[in-house]
């Protein structure tokens, strides 16, 4: 006990109470006092020391006991203090925010906008890219390719590799479910699949059985499996439906036996906006090879990876197999087949096209959030400067820096939590406004809904934002020199130097980021405008497109031609209809038939024949849709008879490609290299799929004879308001034959609009983000400028008192305010020129770094920023010098 207290022990207390040291000191004091008393009573020091220690007893024991008690007490004290401290801080912050309503409202609105936009975007990304496919072990599903369409023999060959445990070809097909009792005849989307389908998707029918491999044989393939939805709506959920034969026409059979019902909740994999309601087996007559298989092509081949196999391994095996097939079937398979062979994750294959765009947009919304945070940080900084005096007083009264920082962070977190909740609500509204879930804009976009991950994202983002906009201002406001402000008690002439620097950086980066977003939005908007100015090649206004599906089995021979001729005649007789005509595929959609051909005078190539788009049309179609017949004549009804010579029209592109500068009329083209038809006319080019894709070579043959197709799209040119005619058209079809279903009827301009819906969505989203960024940037510039000018009132006041003129002051204030804006504009323009490429395929008719568009964006930014700088500058120039000086 006699060692002197080491000096450093004392300093330990600097970091808070030290119970051990306190006990030590207390006991030491006791002994010293006792020794003094005993010495005073006549004992010598050494004896006194021994006596003092004897009286105290077991010093070590006491020390241990006291220290233990002290530590326990210290712990509970600390817990109590920090808990009550947080509550106190929170209520303190709430009071402060309630007092400063303008600040609170500005901060909440900024946060809600930033978080709302980001959460809406993330909801889309989550739905499209992150949510798993609704099947067991969905990451084991792969899609095989060479190209999109396989014949069945090729599909079988490439999927027969060890890395795959099950596979199925899938074709999308439309069937007619005949009306009976109280049900109308209706069109149902069907999925034509193999027996392996159920193993691939890991789902078995809830009732009945899956398909059997032998049901590929045409004679045995007359079976069907219903989805739960169709089973309930059409068959009343009757379990006795198994074994029933239903009239389901199309794909070879008129009647099929129901062998199964899929479980509820099973959603057949498919294309966006198209939900299959029945499954039927693929069928193929007899054994065929890749070369001799002329069955209908399957659209997709989906497979499940074998245990422990990887997508890469499967892709390598599929490529190796394709290599061998290309060598085995020269002239049937070519290099393009080899080049496109592979396998990729099913989800990847669905969202691959939009992934990059979505990530770009997510980055864009990240910029918006950063801007929102920057503005808030600036707001907090300004408030912090105002509160320095208060903080200085409190620091002087012993409030630790940690406490002051914590208090301000609590305020930030409260703001962030409230702003985050508002933002979550706002994101619902945004998604509703974008109609993302019902427009089938993106693959899987119907899954863009609120889930746990979205909520977690919203709150994580809010907390991150709170740190982002709260920490720096809190540290700055409580910086070491807070106490100096206490002494000075008066305003400094200007903002402190670090304050000025961060103001410059803040404005410059806000302007740069906003420029980038506005430039991106401008690029997409110019793309849309360029797209709208493209001539589609036909005039869709006032045209109603009626997709009709006659049951193919019942409409063999000449019956389909006769039916459509009668329907067109009826439609043309209807009031409000000018004329009508049919084509077998709706323009501006992905649907396509492409046929190999051999044109007159062409040497047969060594490999596969080239291919051109193929369409079947009725007389009057071209006139109805306004597609000009440039030379020769339209199809006549006499061309439609079964024994008429085969004639057709080609488009100008095809004519120019085959016989440049020569007259194509009267020449022949052999379909599949065998069936010749004579060219009777040339029509204008049409952007058959979408405006952003170049027209392809096309052939149009007369509806009738061998091409008497049962499913046609009848176009009716109306005198305005095509949508109003839909009920009458449906009635006309039903009158002609109640067994014929209208798949759907909609104005052709809507079809054209839908082909651009994805572009419109992306452009709309980025424009919204751009406007947000512009507004946030303007508010930010205005805020910093007002603050700087406010802090410089005194300086300008003195200058004016000394004779400076208002114009001079205004000019000086403007140049000071615009310097960071200019720096930001330069940065933003450079970044936009470089970053335009991120928009990639979304651009149309405009280059990624289009100088005019980027300059326009910078111009808009410059004007807005100038206004934001000008208002505070004008205010300072109008300052009354005398008043400022008196105030000092």
């Amino acid at each position, binding site marked *: 006990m006699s060692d002197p207290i080491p000096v450093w022990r004392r300093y330990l207390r600097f970091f808070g109470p030290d119970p051990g040291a*306190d006990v030590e*000191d*207390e*006991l030491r*004091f*006791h002994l*010293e*006092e*006792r020794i*003094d*008393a005993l010495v005073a009573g006549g004992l010598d020091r050494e004896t006194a020391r021994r006596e003092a220690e004897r*009286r*105290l*007893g*077991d010093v070590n*024991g*006491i020390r241990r*006991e*006291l220290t233990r*008690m*002290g530590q326990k*007490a210290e712990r509970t004290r600390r817990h109590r203090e920090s808990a009550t401290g947080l509550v106190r801080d929170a209520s303190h912050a709430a009071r402060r925010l309630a007092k400063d309503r303008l600040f609170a409202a500005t901060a909440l609105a900024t946060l809600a906008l930033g978080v709302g936009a980001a959460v809406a975007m993330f909801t889309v990304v989550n739905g499209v890219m992150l949510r798993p496919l609704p099947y067991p072990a969905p990451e084991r599903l792969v899609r095989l390719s060479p190209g999109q369409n396989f014949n069945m023999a090729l599909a079988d060959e490439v999927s027969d590799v060890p890395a795959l445990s099950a596979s199925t070809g899938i074709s999308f097909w439309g069937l007619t479910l005949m009306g009976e009792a109280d049900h109308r005849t209706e069109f149902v989307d069907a999925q034509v699949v193999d027996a392996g389908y159920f193993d691939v998707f890991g789902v078995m029918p809830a009732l009945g059985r899956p398909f059997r491999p032998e049901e590929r044989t045409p004679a045995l393939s007359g079976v069907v499996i219903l989805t739960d939805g169709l089973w309930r709506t059409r068959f009343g959920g009757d379990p006795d439906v198994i074994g029933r034969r239903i009239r389901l026409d199309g794909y070879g059979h008129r009647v099929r036996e129901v062998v199964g019902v899929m479980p509820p909740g099973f959603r057949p994999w498919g294309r966006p906006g198209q939900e299959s309601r029945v499954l039927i087996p693929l069928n193929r007559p007899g054994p065929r090879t890749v070369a001799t298989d002329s069955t209908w092509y399957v659209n997709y081949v989906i497979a499940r990876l074998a245990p422990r196999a990887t997508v890469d391994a499967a892709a390598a095996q599929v490529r190796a197999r394709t290599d061998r097939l290309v060598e085995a079937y020269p002239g049937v398979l070519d290099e393009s087949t080899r080049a496109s062979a592979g396998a990729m994750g099913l989800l990847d294959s669905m969202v691959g096209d939009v992934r990059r765009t979505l990530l770009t947009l997510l980055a864009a919304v990240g910029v918006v959030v950063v801007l929102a945070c920057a503005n808030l940080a600036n707001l907090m900084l300004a408030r912090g400067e105002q509160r320095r005096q208060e903080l200085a007083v409190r620091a002087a009264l012993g409030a630790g820096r940690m406490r002051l920082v914590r208090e301000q962070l609590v305020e930030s977190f409260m703001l962030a939590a409230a702003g985050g909740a508002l933002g979550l609500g706002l994101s619902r509204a945004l998604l509703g406004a974008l109609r993302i879930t019902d427009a089938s804009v993106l693959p899987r976009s119907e899954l863009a809904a609120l889930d746990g991950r979205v909520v977690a994202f919203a709150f994580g983002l809010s907390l991150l934002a709170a740190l982002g906009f709260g920490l720096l201002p809190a540290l700055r406001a409580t910086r070491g020199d807070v106490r100096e402000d206490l002494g000075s008690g008066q305003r400094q002439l200007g903002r402190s130097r670090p304050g000025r620097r961060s103001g410059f950086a803040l404005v410059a980066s806000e302007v740069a980021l906003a420029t980038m977003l506005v430039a991106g939005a401008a690029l997409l908007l110019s793309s849309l405008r360029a797209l709208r100015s493209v001539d589609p090649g036909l005039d869709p206004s006032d045209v109603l497109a009626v997709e009709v599906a006659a049951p193919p089995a019942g409409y063999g021979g000449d019956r389909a031609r006769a039916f459509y001729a009668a329907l067109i005649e009826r439609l043309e007789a209807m009031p409000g209809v000018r004329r009508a005509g049919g084509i077998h595929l709706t323009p501006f959609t992905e649907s396509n038939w492409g046929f190999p051909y051999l044109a007159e005078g062409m040497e047969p190539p060594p490999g596969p024949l080239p291919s051109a788009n193929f369409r079947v049309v009725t007389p009057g179609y071209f006139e109805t849709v306004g597609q000009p017949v440039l030379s020769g004549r339209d199809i006549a009804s006499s061309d439609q008879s079964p024994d008429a010579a085969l004639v057709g029209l080609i488009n100008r592109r095809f004519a120019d490609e085959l016989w440049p500068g020569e007259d194509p009329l009267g020449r022949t083209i052999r379909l599949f290299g065998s069936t010749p038809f004579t060219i009777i006319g040339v029509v204008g080019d049409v952007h058959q799929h979408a405006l952003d894709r170049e027209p392809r070579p096309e052939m149009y043959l007369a509806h009738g004879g061998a091409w008497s197709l049962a499913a046609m799209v009848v176009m009716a040119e109306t005198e305005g308001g095509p949508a109003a005619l839909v009920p009458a058209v449906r009635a006309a079809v039903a009158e002609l034959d109640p067994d014929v279903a209208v798949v759907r009827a909609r104005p052709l301009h809507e079809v054209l609009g839908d082909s651009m819906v994805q572009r419109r969505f992306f452009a709309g989203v980025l424009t919204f983000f751009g406007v947000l960024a512009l507004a946030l940037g303007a508010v930010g510039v205005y805020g910093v400028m007002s603050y700087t000018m406010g802090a410089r009132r005194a300086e300008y006041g003195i200058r004016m008192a000394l004779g400076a003129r208002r114009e001079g002051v205004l000019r000086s204030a403007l140049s000071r305010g615009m310097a960071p804006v200019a720096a930001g504009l330069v940065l933003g323009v450079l970044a936009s020129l470089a970053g335009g490429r991120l928009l990639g395929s979304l651009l149309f008719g405009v280059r990624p770094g289009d100088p005019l568009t980027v300059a326009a964006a910078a111009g808009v930014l410059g004007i807005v920023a100038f206004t934001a700088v000008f208002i505070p500058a004008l205010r300072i120039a109008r300052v009354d010098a005398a008043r400022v000086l008196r105030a000092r």
Partner: protein
Amino acid sequence: MDDQQFLPGTLEVLVLKTLSWGALHGYGIAAWLEERTGNVLTIEEGSLYPALHRMERKGWLEAEWRITEKKRRAKYYRLTAAGRAELGREEKAWARFAVAVSSVLEGEAPAWAAQG
């Protein structure tokens, strides 16, 4: 200096009473009690400090470090409101106890004593 056995709880009430006159450090409390009781009640110093700390935790006392006139750092204890209330209760209990004990010790001989 015969060591006298304390009744349990006695030390606490003595400390409370001592501190009711003003703030004092541990040694001061011990010295005052010894002086006051004419060294009859020798404070078991080993139990004084744990008692002080216990009472501090109970909220009866609060402590504060001060510098003594000899420039030594000492921990001074002071009665809190709760401590004052506790002292009041204890004093009453003691008074009742003392009355009860002395009524036995100083009372008249019982009737049955004469027969003894």
